[in-house]
């Protein structure tokens, strides 16, 4: 039961991440817009790139 709940939560999160902001006049930003905002500051850029590197290491090297 907890496994199914987990799968549902992950599936919904993935679907929302793709769907957010795609509707016309949506108040919710798309993932690209959100990233664009995060990447404005040097700290945001550094954290995003380091997180990206960690994801690669976690899934492909570790």
């Amino acid at each position, binding site marked *: 039961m907890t496994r199914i709940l987990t799968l549902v939560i992950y599936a919904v*999160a993935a679907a929302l991440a793709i769907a957010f902001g795609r509707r016309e006049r949506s108040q919710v930003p798309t993932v690209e817009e959100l990233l664009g905002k995060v990447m*404005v500051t040097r700290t945001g*850029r550094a954290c995003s*790139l380091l997180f990206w590197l960690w994801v690669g290491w976690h899934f*492909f090297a570790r």
Partner: protein
Amino acid sequence: MTHDTTRAERPPTAVVVTSTSTLSWRWPLIAVTLVYSFIVGGLRTFTPASNVAIFGTGAIFLAIALFRPPKRVPPPRSLERRGIMAWTIMLGVFSVQEIANDLLGSSYAHPTLSILMTPILDHQLFRAVAVFVWIAVGVELLRR
């Protein structure tokens, strides 16, 4: 006077050359990335080779970000508070679920994303696709 006329008559070659140059590099780069992804996708985890491949890629991207960043896509002017709230809630629920499952042992009953991805990433082809997507996300991050 003559100098001004020459400048006025000069066609905007720089813009055209930049655009053509970008396009001419795009497909060879994609092809090289596909081959590289397939090679990295074939490396076994927990090996020096896979670590070198991932950290090497990361080092190249960090160097580009620091010393030769590409032309960036302009950021959005402002984001709606409700929109940010929607993302915060979604990412919050996802993170809580991930942390809770990790604390509960990351098992079949309480799987983290890593556990769910392991059987998929065991296949070289899927793994290569995932590496390619990872690199593509990195490129997109550099442009933001």
